[in-house]
């Protein structure tokens, strides 16, 4: 999933843009930032936010990005005071990471609660991998009795949100709707993570908060806990929420973590500086931006940037303050893209690379194209079928080869990769029964063996009042020179062919034009030609005779299949 659909309240969004703007301008800004707008009305905007910009999942973050993009506001500095509240962190193997902060002076109106819940849900869903990687708990600080702690419990009881009875973790996972939904996260776990204060449980992450610290319309001060399995994701989430609340006018307090195994750390680390080589940016984009221009473009994307004074290599380095809410910056190229977005994709002048190369098709593709041409001019119609099939279809075609089997099929139609094209062709004849006779069909398509080696086959069928071996053998003669194959007068021995009326194909390996064939120069059977057995026809409800051939075309380098590995994947 690379996008999440978010609904923003127009008024609220404009509050964080910093100015009320015409709807068209807001929509354009979203789209120029790479977020397609599904719907826009006077009251709300529905946009697809890509998951590299999870900061824009919040209305505060989306408004901030647009305000900066339009030049209404500039890069922002965020501050967090040290809180008096500390958090004692135990070793919690099931969910090792925790961070927490305080936001004071919040006005919780209905709109804000709605926005907060939407952002929280989408963060859980995408960035948080359905709460597995990160989860957020928000409490009414004034109902909390510090100090707080993060610990693992086998058994503890508390009253979870929306209930009125004391429950243990096991009860919650079994009975509470949220518990049932996310119970799989704790498969095989016996000690559950708990955020606590002196009076008991505040939250059982990532499942549910306690009823005791529930938010109400009178809540002024928030305690936010974020737990998870990835430190960087948990930290980014904390930053996204803290900066959003800061933009709303709250004052943010940083909670210090006292680790059980020793040491202390801050929950929020707002300061981050990175370097960008302007030369690299210009080379990558094909532009010649001066430092001032680059800094201007970076500001539109929310970065405070400075260039070193001086000339040459010195002024090439731009120092960038990365806003704490940006979770996606892992390389210089991430700044380069933001410069391109601010510059406007439509302002780039397309250019062709001056790289001289010679175009070519693979020899096997040329063979396919040749064969297709010859068959079409022999009045054959090409079909194109699914490569995925099922046991039933193979069985109807009297094919028992074992092939690639899918571990997690979604439907009974697609459970395996086909080993032969014939069933696809017979299926096509079956659906075309009303289309008159004769019918001449072929397919050039992919098949796979049990080891997962894929190759291309050709299969031709003729059905008519009379369709015999000689009719189809004549067609083979038309294409055989391109196939580099010969028919050997030996019965193909296939269950789906009438015995005594078929031949098998062989291909000489390393054959050179005009040279004599080596005694051992064959590579075994690569196909067959014959009349289809009436049992197979009856299985497909085909009531006219069918003559057919199928043959292996030259293959590409196959994947090396391994015998079932002893190492088991997680």
């Amino acid at each position, binding site marked *: 999933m690379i996008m999440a659909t978010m609904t923003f309240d127009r008024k609220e969004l404009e509050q964080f843009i910093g100015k009320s703007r015409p709807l068209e301008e807001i929509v354009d800004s979203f789209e120029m930032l790479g977020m397609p707008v599904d719907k826009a009305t006077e009251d709300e905007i529905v946009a697809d936010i*890509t998951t590299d910009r999870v900061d824009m999942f919040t209305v505060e973050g989306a408004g901030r990005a647009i305000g900066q993009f339009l030049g209404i506001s500039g890069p922002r500095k965020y501050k967090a005071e040290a809180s008096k509240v500390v958090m004692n962190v135990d070793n919690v193997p099931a969910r090792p990471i925790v961070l927490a902060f305080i936001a004071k002076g919040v006005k919780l109106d209905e709109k804000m609660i709605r926005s907060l819940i939407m952002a929280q849900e989408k963060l859980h869903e995408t960035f948080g991998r359905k709460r597995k990687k990160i989860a957020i708990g928000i409490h009414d600080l004034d109902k909390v009795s510090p100090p707080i702690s993060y610990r693992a419990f086998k058994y503890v009881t508390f009253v979870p949100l929306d209930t009125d009875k004391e429950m243990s973790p096991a009860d919650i996972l079994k009975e509470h709707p949220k518990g049932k939904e996310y119970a799989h996260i704790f498969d095989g776990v016996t000690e559950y993570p708990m955020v606590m204060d002196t009076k008991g449980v505040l939250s059982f992450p990532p499942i549910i908060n306690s009823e005791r610290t529930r938010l109400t319309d009178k809540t002024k001060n928030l305690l936010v806990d974020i737990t998870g399995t990835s430190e960087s994701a948990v930290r980014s989430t904390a930053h996204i929420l803290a900066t959003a609340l800061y933009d709303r006018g709250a004052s943010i307090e940083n909670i210090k973590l006292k680790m059980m195994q020793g040491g202390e750390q801050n929950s929020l680390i707002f300061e981050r500086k990175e370097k960008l080589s302007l030369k690299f940016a210009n*080379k990558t984009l094909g532009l010649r931006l001066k430092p001032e221009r680059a800094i201007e473009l970076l500001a539109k994307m929310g970065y405070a940037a400075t260039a070193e004074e001086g000339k040459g290599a010195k002024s090439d380095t731009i120092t960038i303050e990365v806003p704490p809410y940006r979770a996606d910056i892992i390389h210089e190229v991430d700044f380069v893209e933001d410069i391109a977005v601010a510059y406007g994709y439509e302002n780039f002048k397309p250019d062709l690379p001056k790289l001289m190369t010679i175009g070519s098709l693979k020899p096997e593709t040329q063979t396919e194209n040749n064969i297709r041409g010859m068959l079409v001019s022999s009045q054959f119609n090409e079909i194109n079928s699914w490569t995925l099939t099922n046991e039933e279809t193979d069985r109807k075609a009297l094919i028992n080869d074992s092939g690639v089997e899918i571990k997690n099929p*979604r439907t009974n139609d697609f459970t395996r990769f086909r080993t032969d094209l014939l069933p696809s062709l017979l299926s096509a004849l079956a659906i075309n029964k009303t289309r008159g006779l004769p019918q001449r069909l072929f397919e050039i398509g992919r098949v796979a063996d049990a080891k997962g080696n894929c190759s291309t086959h050709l299969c031709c069928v003729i059905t008519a009042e009379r369709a015999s071996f000689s009719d189809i053998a004549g067609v083979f003669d038309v294409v055989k020179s391109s196939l580099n194959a010969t028919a050997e007068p030996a019965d193909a021995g296939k269950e789906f062919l009438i015995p005594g009326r078929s031949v098998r194909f062989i291909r000489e390996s390393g054959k050179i034009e005009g040279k004599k064939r080596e005694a051992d120069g064959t590579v075994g059977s690569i196909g067959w030609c014959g009349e289809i057995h009436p049992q197979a026809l009856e299985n497909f409800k085909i009531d006219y005779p069918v003559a057919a051939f199928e043959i292996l075309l030259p293959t590409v380098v196959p994947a090396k299949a391994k015998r079932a590995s002893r*190492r088991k994947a997680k």
Partner: protein
Amino acid sequence: MTSTKGSKTAGSVDISTLHQNDRSLLTALIGKKGISLQDAARAASLNPDSVMRSAFTLSASNLLLINESKSERLVLTDEGKRFLENRFPEQRVLDAAEKHFAMDRLSEEEKKVGVAWASRLGWVKVSDGKLQVKSKPQAYGIYDALKLIGQGKAPDKASAEQLVKRGSAALKVDKSFSFTLTPAGESAAKGAKELIISGTSGAGAEVNELTHEMLSTGSWKEARFRKYNTSAPVETASHGAAHPISAYVSRIQQIFLNMGFEEATGNEVESSFWNFDALFTPQDHPARELHDTFYLKQPGYVEYPKDVAERVKEVQEKNWKYSWNPSVAEQAVLRTHTTCISGRKLAELGKKRSRPAKFFAIGRVYRNEATDFKHLAEFYQVEGIVAWKRANFRHLLGVLSSFYGQLGMKVRFRPHYFPYTEPSLEVDRWDEGRNQWIELAGAGILRPEVSMPLWGAYPVLAWGMSLERPIMAKLKVNDMRSLYTNDLEWLRNTEIKD
């Protein structure tokens, strides 16, 4: 009726001069009444067109009665088909109003026809040159009726009349024929049967066909050729055709060749390594989950090169901060994109000191999705790569403009996000019929985390798209599955035109 010696006649017709097909039809109809065209064709071992030709001849000689019956059905006009695909202009106007589009973003048709209807229906109003939604209907009956006709079903009478009046549908008359011999025909038929059995033909008769014998002996000079009824319907000659997908693939291959790209191919069964790990996808990424990807029971595991894996592991662990698991990378999958082919090819070029190259791949890819009109569990992807140390973003836009220009498409570029490219962009195509931009392809410069471990350098330009969508647009097909139905009628009559 009289019968003269030496020649068999029926009324004024000399049976022996009849075409062999006419005689076959006569004998096939003996003692049958009201036999249908299809049954007659089967009984006479003729094709239906030959039966019609013979039936006209025999009827002109009063040997046969042709009974023609007509039935009427509704079909879509060209306009109707267009509306079925794009919806009625008034529906599009309503959409535009909901999106607050200015009037000048409407097409001529939407302005002229759509606004008038949408206003009359009370859906929108126009004030100060701006569209406003007045009331949004739950459903639009005549569009439903249009869909029914599109499916070959009959809508209610009022809707049908309205659609015919609007010119979106028309009445089509289907004719069917049945045949009965006249008494003269019955007796002529018996004569004809004898004639067929005795195998003789009357002397001095008209000649049906010019033969090799007549030409070599010169007897054609005395011959009189029987006149044909040249207005009788004829059977269309059967012709072969490449599948529309193949035809479109050929076009794309040609464009790549024009631009100097070499073809790359690969195996549909892949290791997770090439499908995910090598493309910087972390091992906990949702795209790898069972409900998006087909994993395999047999073979369960596929090998991957350990030297490339060392570099991939390093990049993954450094950036995603977890312990990379080689057995997860071994899991066999059906490739979910052709980028595995590109990854392998880049690694190959990487061994040759980051050799520059332009290459492309076209192949089937797989997603663990339920199949419906716009989702397929398997479809084609096209992918283009330019690996060149001096390449830049403007080159990417240039290559894309040239490629899609040669496909006859007007395109635009806008920012987007893909996990393994940065910068990334989406290519939109202008759709004349729908009067809007439609998503077409994804593109970007491969992230250094992808290109460095494989090709050993940066940048690599890349783009990819599904093949089915542009083909559907070209063929005006709404249901993606119809490309794979293999209906012979459709295959014979569908052609990719420029």
